[in-house]
């Protein structure tokens, strides 16, 4: 199997199939991070695709101070954070508890749950879904650390590079994220 840097070189020389190899190599890991960050299959798919597309477009700027996987994580986490912020902002614009005035009187507004697909709702019944629910409730910064460290098993050094933070901050966020999850999941774990 070709090394990542060789595939990057080939991609930069115009061999698009070399980039396909990189996608196929990392798509599962990247998608899993996106899924745990976004808490939704469709959102995760969009975010992962956009991450690979952005990585392709900015490949010439990749300075190779980190691994390609860490570089991908960096792009993905930033995308996920932005998407989550946008989703949270959108959902705050209208409260689902506010009745919506119509010609036929006021009706209660129902907004499709953007966080959970029908497939996810079924999963909510089990413990895994409860854990995911607790992860969803974390803020983006803490979520990113816990997903990379405790779910993906990345090293502190890789996380520090991917999130552009020092290791002390990573440890501190990880501690707080774990505390929060532990409290939320008291009856489950």
């Amino acid at each position, binding site marked *: 199997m070709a090394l990542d840097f060789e595939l990057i070189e080939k991609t930069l020389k115009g061999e*698009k199939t070399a980039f396909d190899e990189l996608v196929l190599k990392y798509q599962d890991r990247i998608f899993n991070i996106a899924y745990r960050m976004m808490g939704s299959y469709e959102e995760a*798919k969009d975010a992962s*695709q*956009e991450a690979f*597309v952005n990585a*392709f477009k900015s490949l010439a700027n990749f300075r190779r101070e980190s691994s390609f996987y860490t570089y991908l994580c960096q792009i993905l986490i930033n995308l996920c954070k932005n998407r989550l912020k946008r989703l949270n902002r959108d959902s705050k614009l209208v409260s689902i508890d506010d009745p919506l005035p119509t010609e036929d009187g006021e009706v209660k507004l129902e907004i499709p749950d953007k966080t959970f697909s029908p497939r996810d709702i079924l999963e909510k019944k089990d413990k895994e879904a409860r854990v995911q629910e607790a992860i969803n409730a974390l803020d983006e910064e803490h979520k990113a650390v816990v997903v990379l460290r405790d779910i993906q098993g990345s090293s502190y050094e890789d996380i520090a590079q991917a999130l552009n933070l020092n290791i002390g901050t990573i440890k501190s966020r990880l501690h707080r994220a774990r505390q929060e999850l532990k409290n939320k999941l008291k009856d489950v*774990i």
Partner: protein
Amino acid sequence: MECKIIKDLLSEYLEGDLGDLQKAQVEEHLSVCKDCTAELESLKRLIKNLGSLKKVAAPPDLLDGIHRQLGIQPKKKVSVNRIWVPLEAAGVLVSIILIVLFINQPGILKKGQKATSPALEGAYKSDKFMPEMFNKQEISGEALSVPQETRAFLEERTVITARTKEDVTKIKSIVKELEGEVEKEEANNLYIKIPAKNATILFDRLESAEKENYSPSAAQDTVHFDIQFSGSNQ
């Protein structure tokens, strides 16, 4: 040390990140404090649960979506043209026609009559892929379905148009390997005969050969070999 300080250190303790002194202090406290020990166990369970969350695989069309966003046309998986009907289907059809012809030959096989192999053996005399198993086989005049074993010994003809002289050589070599032969050669058109059992393999081999020639920088829809099914069994 107070419990609150110890609890704040538990995460790092589990990671093995504490210095020797702090580690010893935490362990000393844990040995006498049930509350902090319970907290440690709870933290361990949480980390175990997070680490064992199922890994969600990427959707199968993730790469296609990336190609779309990058404006890359999907690559043709099979660039060999199969005109008319696939060889496999044609082989079965031709076999059926042959059997019908044999049945209609006077004195050989009438409807409802059981025929043994000698009748068929004569009809296939010129076939170099003559199946030995015909000697043991009975075919009913009513049942026109072709047994799988019979099909395996029929042969098929195709015309392969190669793009270059190098391709001609390559095709000839593949055909020879698959027990086939080139009956006629006109320009880059190769009229080949091949055992039906190897017809699919031929296509696969040609596709592989074509992929070897594939250059990502070249036009993606380039067809190197044109194959037309043109013949039938003898």
